């Protein structure tokens, strides 16, 4: 990959790449199947180190993993919403991140869960917080010759819940008009911390830091959640396109932020 630079692409699930090559979005000389690299197929969890998710692990392994559904339900939500069953056999969270679509269903969950992207390249290895990974539609911090190897997610704190919800016009198999991924940590009867991330309302997934920080120390009530949802709407910078208008999308950010926070609070209460 280093040898061919921008003329090389990594093939994991191929559900984005093969379509992009067919419509000539990228003209490449080399496609490298990375599914045989052990590190890229790793899926491991420990209470001390958290989750290591190889970039070539397909969605079905994510949502069938008992640790992920128990500890990171927001990531479970994302993995089970991406494409249909056929796509989920091949497509993975790593490809969803590396493809860097503003509408990617996994990226808000990764941001909400505090994930870092582990990158390897000709100059060595580096790690980047997922909220800094995407730089524009289809663009990321990956330099020519660099490869996304895995993602690391810290172990969940006590009483932590996470949720991803999106709006689409049909029930399955569609691109998010808006998506919202959140995580909430409770401390007794107040919110210890919260992270909110938005999909499809800007050129990259958006980390709505102010909306999340505002919740710190607040009671986990519908009233607090409504106010955080208003703050999240201010972080959204959507465009009008075939999937929705600016007004509809901003409205949806409010609705989905409220619903995902309420869901994450419920999950946090049930968590150990």
């Amino acid at each position, binding site marked *: 990959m280093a040898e061919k630079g921008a003329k090389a692409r990594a093939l994991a699930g191929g559900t984005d790449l093969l379509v992009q090559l067919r419509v000539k979005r990228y003209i490449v000389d080399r496609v490298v199947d990375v599914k045989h690299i052990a590190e890229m197929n790793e899926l491991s969890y420990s209470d001390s180190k958290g989750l290591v998710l190889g970039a070539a692990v397909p969605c079905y392994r994510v949502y069938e993993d008992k640790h992920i559904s128990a500890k990171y339900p927001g990531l479970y939500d994302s993995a089970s919403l991406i494409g249909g069953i056929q796509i989920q056999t091949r497509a993975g969270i790593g490809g969803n991140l590396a493809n860097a679509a503003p509408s990617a269903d996994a990226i808000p969950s990764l941001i909400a869960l505090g994930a870092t992207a582990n990158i390897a390249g000709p100059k060595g290895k580096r790690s980047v917080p997922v909220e800094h990974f995407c730089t524009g539609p289809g663009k990321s911090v990956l330099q020519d010759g660099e490869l996304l190897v895995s993602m690391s997610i810290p172990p969940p704190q006590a009483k932590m819940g996470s949720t991803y919800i999106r709006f689409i016009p049909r*029930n399955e198999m569609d691109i998010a008009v808006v998506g919202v991924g959140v995580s909430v940590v409770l401390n007794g009867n107040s919110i210890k911390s919260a992270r909110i991330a938005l999909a499809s309302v800007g050129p990259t997934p958006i980390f709505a830091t102010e909306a999340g920080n505002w919740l710190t120390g607040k009671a986990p009530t519908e009233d607090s959640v409504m106010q955080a949802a208003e703050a999240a709407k201010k972080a959204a910078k959507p465009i009008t396109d075939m999937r929705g208008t600016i007004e509809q999308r901003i409205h949806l950010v409010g609705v989905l932020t409220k619903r995902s926070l309420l869901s994450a609070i419920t999950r946090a209460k049930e968590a150990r």
Partner: protein
Amino acid sequence: MAKKVIVQANLNDNDTEFLSEPRQSLLEVLRETLALTGTKEGCNDGNCGACTVMVDGRIVNSCLMLAVEAEGKKITTIEGIAQADKLHPLQQSFLEEAALQCGICTPGFIVAAKGLLDREPKADEHRVRHWLAGNLCRCTGYDKIIRAVLKAEKEL
């Protein structure tokens, strides 16, 4: 044009060797090299599910997989669903319930439905509808297809 590669795979329970250019999709090789034209090309971009096949027991869109990725895998296409001279219960119930009109989507639906019933033989209607969301049909309106799958469950 890149050199062709020899691929060894188990295709419908037969060990098979075929040649493929690295850029060719599994769908293209199934239809054009191996003359297994039961698998259909619909959209060729992963939306319609007409090209659904099973790889190691899990359903995939064969248009979104390179044929060279089939190396060492077990592939099942619509041609491998019937048992000897007897239709698979899914094929029989699709006929009985008139779950097809033009028929282009049918091989994909049957392979996808088999992928579900192999795993969850008692899937309810909601689960069947959810599982088959990656398969599009422009003729039937889906109801007859769902009825056929639920009927096949009882036969299995």
